């Protein structure tokens, strides 16, 4: 029977993987996926918390679960906008590699 700790470990792992993806991968799309992964890590731990900390009435804390839905929605919106920008970028510069994006500096 997995405890809260297990869930938190998993979500922590997810979060770290996402962060590493952001830090290490060169392709903006992959980086973007890493970011989504981080959000989902948060979702996982939220749900876990809401399950394992029932309120006084014995029901799970619904605030967290509401927040989860909002996060999913927002993530979707973010992806929509993000992909649009990336596509425009690709049209303009024929590249989706981060190291090509350094005209603005210093």
């Amino acid at each position: 029977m997995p405890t809260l700790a297990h869930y938190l470990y998993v979500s922590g792992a997810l979060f770290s993987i996402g962060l590493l993806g952001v830090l290490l991968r060169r392709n903006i799309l992959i980086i973007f996926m890493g970011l989504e992964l981080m959000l989902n890590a948060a979702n996982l731990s939220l749900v876990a918390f809401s399950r394992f900390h029932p309120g006084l009435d014995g029901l799970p804390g619904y605030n967290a679960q509401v927040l989860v839905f909002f996060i999913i929605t927002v993530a979707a919106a973010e992806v929509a906008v993000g992909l649009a920008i990336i596509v425009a970028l690709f049209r303009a510069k024929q590249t989706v590699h981060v190291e090509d994006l350094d005209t603005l500096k210093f």
Partner: protein
Amino acid sequence: MNTLIAPWIILFTPLAAAAVILFVGRHSKPLSAGLAIGSAAVGCLLSWWLFLQPDPEEVLRFPWIAIGDSWLQMNLSIPIGVTVDHLSKLMLVVVTTIATLVFTYSIGYMKTEEGYWRYFAGLSLFLFSMLGIVLADNFVMMFIFWELVGLSSYILIGHYFRKDSAADACKQAFIVNRVGDFGFLLGILFLWAATGTLMFGDLTSGKGIALFAANPIYLTVACLLIFCGTVGKSAQMPLHVWLPNSMEGPTPVSSLLHAATMVAAGVYLLARIFPILEAAPHALDVIAWIGGITCFAAALMATQQNDIKRILAYSTISQLGYMVLGMASASSADVSMFHLFTHAFFKCLLFLCAGSVIVGMHHEQDIWKMGALKNKMPVTFLIMCIGGLALSGCPFFSGYYSKDLIIAWAVVKYPLLGWLSVATAGLTAFYTVRLLTVVFLGKPRGDQAKHAVESPLVMLVPLACLALPSFIAGYPFIEKLFFHVEEPTAVPHLLHPVLLFLFAVGVVSAFLLYRNAEKDPIFIPLFANRLYIDNLYDWLVKNIQGRGAAVLSWADRWIVDLFIVQIPSKIVWGSGFVLRFFQIGNIQAYAFFFGLGVIGLVHFLIFR
């Protein structure tokens, strides 16, 4: 006319004259001269009148600065007031009389010169300042006019300002006097801090002196500091260098300021504070030594000068040395004041004669270009002889009485210095006769000497007027009229014989040596070069002060500025320049820094 108002009229008439000349004088020469001489004459008459009055009980006084401080329990009230006592009345008479004569003489001397109005304005300003010194009733007022005579001397020495030598001379005169005033002002501060008063009356009335009983060292220091003022103004060693250079000014100026009156102000100052000095014996010793050394060294230098005016200048220094020595050794200030009195007349006379000679020689001052002038300008010769004899202490001439009196006192109190001054007497005779012989006897040594002409009457009359007092001013009946001096007791018996002998030796040797010498038969570089003191000062000013200041200004630009301004600003700008390289433009670098920031922040938040 009463004794309340008279001093103020005497004091301010010359100032008014100076102001008027300054504004309108440039348009008419007679007006300038007339105003100046008029103001001097008014002063002269009033002074004589005042002199014959008994000392007034009360005098007018106006507040100049008046502040009270409740914290320090001290009041600072600096009035502008006058002292009318025997001393000041005597000085008034001397100053105004001589001033009147010299002013008159100037008409002739300056006839052909430029800046006529400047000259007379300066003279009137000087007269005002000098009378201010004489009449001052407190230290600050005296200091004020002390500075003002410095200013007028600056203006008058620099009359021929287009000559580099004159320009340098006036600058030097003012600055050297400032150095003396540095001490003078400090002395005033010392006295005030201890007694809380600045009035001569309170300080000399014994009330002031009593305060010092606790701390004689303090009083000694204070007196010596005030004496610095004398050293500067009366050209004592080591601040004497400015006086010979001040001969760059017109000759009447030299005779009035730098022989008769202004340089005597230092002696007058000592006379004013004589009671305080008596309370500080150690200070008196120092003063005596400075006076004695000055009078001897200056005489030595005088023997080797070739400029007619410089010879007289050094003799002035030497005579002032006598007076200072007298102040230190005699029982009353009158002894030195007596010499000041006689000296004022005959030294002024000598300078005016020199001026007449210079005019006759078309402004040639080197005595070795003169000669045989007795035929060309007999009157001048005759009168100058009177002055010379008075200076060299020939019996029955004024100088003889006053100088011997000082020497007697000196021999009694400071034997060593006394005998030094005795030797000086011989030297005096020597250089005086040297001067007279070379200038008037022998044969002409140049065209100017051949074509020299006697001076106009306007110059000769003042000479005649001065010749009389130079002759008789020392006689007892006059002495009794002006002074109450007593002979020292226990004077060595052979003093007067020795003096007479030295006088004779000086006269004869000089006459024989120089009777028909083409050039100076004896040459002693040490004396000719004024004991190298001027060179020492030049070196100090050039190398110590100049170089030091240059180093400091370099340091200001390259050390202070560097460390206070340049380096900090450069550091800030540079670090900004470096910091912006974090902004390398790569997203992942940013994300990486971001992550570091997160770690740092969380670590800081949790583990501290």
